């Protein structure tokens, strides 16, 4: 059988396998059953195997070995240190030599933490604070959108403040005879308002998750119909 024939058969085989696996997953409607567990196991195994093959083929081979074999000066300057660090990091796999890889691991963790913190500060905190402040820049807003823009900005401001106040668990002693407690303003006003905003946020997130799940269900049902249509049209 030539490769073209195999390629031609791959599509109907893939459709059948996908069809069966989809039915096995949807069998969870009637409860946990071996078919559902088999489909889950197949999916995990295929994903892991594919990831290993991809990493070895796409990363180790084409990003380290091929540049090393190409013998280009620019690549050698990066690949040789990468190989040294790679061999050095392998010492972590040995319990006896694991301590030798600690400096390299510390370097990786340090660089990763620095990149994450730097990105969070410069890419999230400062821009978000600046964007929240600009909500009250009414001069740049058109006149017809002024009220809505202001209300949107006010809602964001109140939501941010009350949400932060909800997570304020500090207490302060208010008098010698009184026990330390939270501020009544926080306890009675801000915290409940923050709790409301948090609940709305979680509701929106759940709605997004449910919408995503419904989209996946519709896609699978559409796939089943397409497969059926495909085999029916062939029939």
């Amino acid at each position, binding site marked *: 059988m030539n490769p073209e024939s195999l390629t031609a058969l791959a599509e109907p085989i893939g459709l059948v396998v996908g069809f069966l696996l989809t039915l096995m997953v949807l069998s969870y409607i009637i409860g946990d059953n071996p078919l559902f567990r088999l489909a889950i196991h197949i999916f995990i195994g295929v994903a892991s195997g594919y990831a290993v093959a991809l990493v070895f083929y796409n990363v180790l081979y084409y990003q380290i070995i091929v540049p090393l074999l190409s013998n280009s000066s620019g690549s050698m300057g990066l690949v040789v240190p990468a190989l040294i660090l790679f061999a050095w990091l392998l010492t972590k796999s040995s319990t006896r030599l694991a301590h030798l890889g600690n400096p390299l691991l510390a370097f990786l963790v340090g660089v990763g933490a620095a990149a994450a913190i730097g*990105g969070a500060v410069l890419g999230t905190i400062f821009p978000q604070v600046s964007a929240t402040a600009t909500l009250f820049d009414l001069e740049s807003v058109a006149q017809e959108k002024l009220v809505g823009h202001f209300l949107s900005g006010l809602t964001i401001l109140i939501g941010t403040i009350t949400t932060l106040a909800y997570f304020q668990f500090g207490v302060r002693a208010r008098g010698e005879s009184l026990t330390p407690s939270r501020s009544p303003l926080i306890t009675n006003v801000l915290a409940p308002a923050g709790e409301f905003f948090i609940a709305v946020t979680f509701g929106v997130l759940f709605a997004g998750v449910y919408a995503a799940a419904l989209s996946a*269900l519709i896609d699978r049902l559409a796939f089943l*119909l397409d497969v059926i249509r495909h085999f029916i049209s062939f029939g």
Partner: protein
Amino acid sequence: MNPADQENCLSCKAPLSASAFDAPAESGEGLPDWLSSLQGAGDLEEGLPSEETPAPPFEPGFDLGEVQIPDWLSTGTAPEEPTAEPAEGGLPEWLSGISGVEEANAPESAVPEGEAEADWLSSLLQDQPPETPTAAEPPDWLKSDEKTPSPFVGEGPDWLSQPEAEEAPAQPAFAGEIPDWLSSLAGEESAEQPPAAEVPAAFEIPPVQEPEVESSGQPSVPDWPAAEPEASSEQPASGASAFILDEQETASSEVPTPSGDFLTGLPDWVSQVGADQGDVDDSAGEGAQGLVQGELPTWLEAMRPVEAAAPVTPYEDVSGADVVAAGPLAGLRGVLAAEPDALQPHKPTAYSIKLRVTDEQRARVALLEELLATEDKPKPLPATPLITTQFVLRLVIALALILPILWLLLADSQLFKPPQPAEMPGVTDLHNQIAALPIGSPVLVAFDYEPAFAGEMEAAASAVLVHLTERRANLLLVSTSPTGPVLAQGLLAKLNQQPEGTKEPYRNYANLGYLPGGVIGLLGLAANPAQVLPYTLEGLYVWDQSALQGINTAADFSLLLVLTDNPETARSWIEQVGPTLQEKATPLLLATSAQAGPMVYPYYAARQVQGLLSGLAGGTAYETVHAAGGPASGMWDAFGASILVSSLVILLAGLGSALRKSVVVENKLSTENEKKEQP
């Protein structure tokens, strides 16, 4: 005290006179045992002289039958006569001392030792005659001795030292007093035994001493002086030395007793008699006088051994005492048992080791044992009915969702109005950004979603990708997820098969594969994408193509589109690559899942993201803006119906829950009211 005419002692039956001491004719016949044994023990006496006092010199011509009766014999046979006459008689002082010893020893056999010592001390203190016995008439044997020169002229005793020829004239005067057995013995021993051995044997006539001697005024010499020569062997014997009272007890304890082996306990001083004869002769005479004339000093009185003179211990009646039943003292009465009862071996008392457990404790133990026994046994699951309320409810909800979806998918209807781009923030901006791309611009597309969200993401992003293909953009596909490259490959393959897509298969893309390293990989990709991802999945180096010339950083791309279902992934792209893109105002567009839309919307509101598309609704809106059909629009009716069904289910479930709760509360209240009404 024996009478004067008594020949034998009333107490000890010893002969009191020389006649009474006549031995039987035949040697050994009628002789006391000790004396007869003495004859036979002549051999033993050889060499018996004390080591300290040398034996008298042996004289070969000695013959007992011809010599005088030795003084030791005289002291034994004539006790009632004064024995010491230091001034007149030739009897040496030591002989008188010996006689005194003999006198003290004689009653010693009948009375206790302490009593004897008391006697001599009393006689010494009270009955001391004012005159010495020198005035008394010497006995016959002493008379005969007077006729002969003093035996102590020489070094040895007279009876030993005088030759036989010289003794011949004196023999008749003494012959009648010498017993026959002694004569014969003398004749035999003179030839067979050395005279030195005979000397101690002659002292074995002790019991003839009579206590009456004391009554005659002769001071009784205690037995302790017998040991005096031994104690003071290095000193010349003297009469004064006999009164060393601190050695009295020791001396008395060493007095030989008339037993068969008495020769072995013969005092040394007896052996020294011959050697010290001359000296003792003078010193003893002086000492004797001192004894007669002196009085017991006070210090000596103070040193009187009262305990020794004490009477015997009082009689103790032990008839009622217990008899020892075991041990080495078994059978004795009135003694302490060697093995007291505490040490007697006996069988140890057996104590029961059985616990005293109450019934309640037994019940608890049984319960605990039952728990432990059933712990290892697998507990069977409770048999649940095949069809439960929950199962029915789940099945009903599933059918309520699936059936409308299938029906709307099969019908291909347009029941629900698709969302407009104005209602979906970011969709119009996204469309405008893509629409503004120059033809053939390099576009970096990130497929960072999981296969589980492929249905939603592919439906949402298909219209965007179709729009990009319409712009003939050079697509470079990357992914920070291992499953991203295959999803990208599959989506592009699907787009090429769609009838709504381009007529010709779109080949103007390169899948660069997986980007490892997380945020560090993204940072490297933003800095130098060609160095981080030089090759495609097929192993092609695409960075030297004309469309990609001049791309050194991520900002050199015309556009960056991120397809992700995870808000964290979107945030990483925004944080790590966004600043680089801002250098050249390169737009960053996001096509996310519905669940990540609300989380990434603030970035769009803050203008960190220039275009946003979220979920199936965003894809449908994009298709609407783009004025082209797509998978999102085909799924929108089903999506709307499922949302409607879901809303109805949620509403009905809420109403049912509220109704059930109200019914339960109402039943509870009614029950309470009934209880209140019924007493």
